[in-house]
């Protein structure tokens, strides 16, 4: 572990290098490195520099606005926020169980969301690093470069994402920021025409998802030792799980395993999350640092998202994804897979499961059902938890007698990976940058480690491709020693 790299002694004597912004991630973040006079790394931090304030400004609003309001946190995974808030307001109106049709519609919506988000991340944001190499020409290391050199792969990614968005549009009326979840159910049935429309391209999507798993497997195993050790950290893992231990995205109990795969807690009602997870605030980041209470503040950090879910589950209920999971888990030698770059592999296994799950649901007669809303007795507290593309997402609300939100707490998936991302980039900094002259390719390794987590740094802005980059290497006296720029065309210069 590299936790000592969180706070350097005598930082005023060190040189500071900033990667600002981190590119090809969702949202805006920056990385700072502090180096001594021999270019040895003394401090590494991933900073989240945007302040959103959603938890505050939804206070004072009526609870039924929550699913539509909070989904504006993000343009990539709004459905996850929509559904987490939807589950919370089900509790506020006293509904524990939806009608079969409403629940299946929500599950279908969620699978569409996961599929499009995973496809976006793998093909648009991550594949340029994996296909071209971390040191490849920066100007071509983007989705346009992928489409030029590997048009078939690039186009497949675009079409997979489009399909997921079409699932979302059929259910919520819009590809981004529609409406669907209302207290106790859903506001619209899926029509037969919409269902049949989605079935047309489904077999293609399934095939593309299988090919995507094969592609990342091939890329990863082409240089297994390097990929295994790149940004490698050991951690605990957290996620939702079905009663029978199957991979679960929409609803289940909380399961956490330690770095050896031993259970820390299992099948916990997520409404009791406050007994198991706490959050720490640090002065240098707007993102909180959650930790597992039983492991303590120092060692209780954990990882969420595709790697956590695949490590945590006992099996996947759909056959193709389950076969891919078994193959993947061989990388762990009987324990969890800890490699950070294995996130990509796990993510594509999940995309395959999404495609299989969508097929199952589209052929389920309940999916066309019109009985969509149930009612109950109002309560004043609601907690909704869901597995968003990037990991476990918590929405917790309290309301008053007038139906107005008085308290809100959101633990967004990327927040849970905060410490892990910091640990990963510290490992990269020590292994590849320590004592060396900095180059764009070396710095890109820091970003590659961050991208593996598919972070949604602000859950709002979306940075893509050749973002301009300006790096200054400043000595202890404030003199600029080295200077590296990358313009909006992706060209770098000293």
């Amino acid at each position, binding site marked *: 572990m590299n936790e000592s790299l969180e706070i350097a002694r005598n930082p005023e004597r060190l040189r500071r290098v900033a990667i600002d912004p981190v590119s090809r991630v969702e949202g805006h973040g920056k990385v700072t490195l502090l180096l001594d006079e021999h270019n040895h790394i003394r401090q590494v931090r991933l900073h989240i520099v945007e302040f959103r304030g959603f938890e505050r400004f939804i206070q*004072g*609003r*009526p609870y*039924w*606005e929550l*699913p*539509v*309001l909070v989904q*504006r946190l993000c343009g990539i995974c709004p459905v996850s926020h929509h559904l987490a808030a939807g589950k919370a307001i089900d509790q506020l109106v006293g509904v524990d169980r939806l009608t079969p049709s409403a629940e299946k519609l929500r599950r279908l919506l969620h699978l569409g969301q996961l599929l499009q988000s995973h496809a976006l991340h793998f093909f648009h944001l991550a594949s340029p690093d994996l296909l071209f190499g971390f040191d490849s020409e920066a100007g071509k290391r983007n989705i346009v470069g992928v489409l030029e050199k590997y048009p078939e792969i690039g186009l497949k990614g675009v079409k997979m994402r489009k399909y997921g968005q079409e699932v979302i549009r059929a259910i*919520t*009326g*819009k590809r981004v*920021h*529609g*409406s*669907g979840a*209302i*207290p106790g159910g859903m*506001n*619209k049935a899926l029509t037969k025409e919409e269902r049949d429309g989605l079935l047309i391209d489904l077999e293609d999507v399934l095939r593309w998802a299988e090919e995507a798993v094969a592609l990342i497997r091939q890329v990863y195993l082409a240089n297994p030792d390097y990929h295994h050790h790149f940004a490698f950290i050991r951690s605990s893992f957290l996620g939702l799980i079905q009663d029978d231990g199957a991979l679960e995205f929409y609803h289940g109990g909380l399961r956490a395993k330690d770095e050896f795969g031993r259970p820390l807690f299992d099948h916990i009602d997520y409404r009791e999350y406050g007994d198991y997870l706490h959050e720490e605030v640090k002065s240098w980041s707007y993102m909180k640092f959650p930790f597992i209470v039983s492991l303590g503040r120092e060692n209780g950090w954990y990882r969420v998202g595709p790697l956590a879910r695949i490590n945590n589950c006992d099996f996947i209920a759909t056959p193709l994804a389950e076969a891919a999971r078994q193959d993947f888990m061989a990388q762990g030698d009987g324990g969890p897979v800890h490699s950070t770059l294995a996130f990509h592999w796990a993510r594509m296994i999940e995309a395959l499961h999404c495609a299989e799950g969508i097929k199952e649901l589209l052929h389920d007669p309940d999916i066309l059902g019109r009985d969509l809303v149930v009612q109950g007795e109002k309560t004043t507290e609601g907690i909704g938890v869901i597995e968003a593309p990037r990991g476990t997402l918590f929405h917790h609300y309290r309301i008053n007698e*007038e*139906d*107005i939100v008085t308290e809100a707490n959101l633990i967004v998936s990327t927040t849970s990976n905060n410490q892990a991302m910091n640990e990963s980039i510290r490992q990269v900094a020590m292994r590849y940058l320590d004592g060396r002259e900095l180059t764009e390719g070396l710095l890109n390794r820091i970003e590659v480690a961050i991208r593996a987590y598919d972070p949604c740094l602000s859950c709002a802005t979306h940075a893509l491709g050749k973002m301009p980059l300006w790096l200054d290497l400043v000595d202890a006296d404030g003199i600029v020693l080295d200077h590296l720029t990358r313009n909006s065309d992706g060209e770098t210069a000293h």
Partner: protein
Amino acid sequence: MGTITIDGQAIPFQDGQTLIEAATEAGVYIPHLCHNPEFKPHGSCKLCSVKVNGRVCSACTFPAAEGQEVLNDTDELNEARRMITEMLFVEGNHFCAYCEKSGDCQLQAVGYFLKMTGPRFSYFYPRREVDASHRDILLDRDRCIFCELCVRASRDVDGKNLFAIAGRGIRNHLIVNSASGELEDSGMAVTDKAAHVCPVGAILIKRQAYKVPIGSRTYDERSISEVSLSAEAPVVAAKHD
């Protein structure tokens, strides 16, 4: 009976009709927000401004008279209407992105009709209070555009006189006529006319939000000109039948 022209088209009118009533009955849409043919004209939003023989008038209050030459759908008037609409957007807090009235809101629909893309003015971000005290009715002052339709409905139809506009200029705000100033003890009922006339989302029946899916809301498929004429022409016709 008589005839006027609107944008060169001959339009018949009944004695005592306003310009907007004659236009509505003839199938000519004049943009408006504070006007509702069920209530006495108010003439405050100025969106229905037209030129009558070269002078700007409010079509909702100006009586039709033989031979008037009225200009309505002109670049100049529509630009003025667009500017007025933008002012309404910046004067309040209109968050269409999550507003439950989105798709059913006349202010939003007029904005689309006038091809408004965004306000040219700075937002005021006024501090306005939500009154959620009533069990079944929500009063969200953020969205109020001071059309006084609720004032007129409560006074003239419900006979309760529950609302008024207080303050002046940018301090305008909707007040409730009750001992506490809150809706809870005002005696307002969900069946009151005043609970159903707000053209924006300032007065809403609670717990109905987003029940109508996107695609089925009032203005998802039809423009406000079409919706307005089909809803209001029969009301106007019934007045002289």
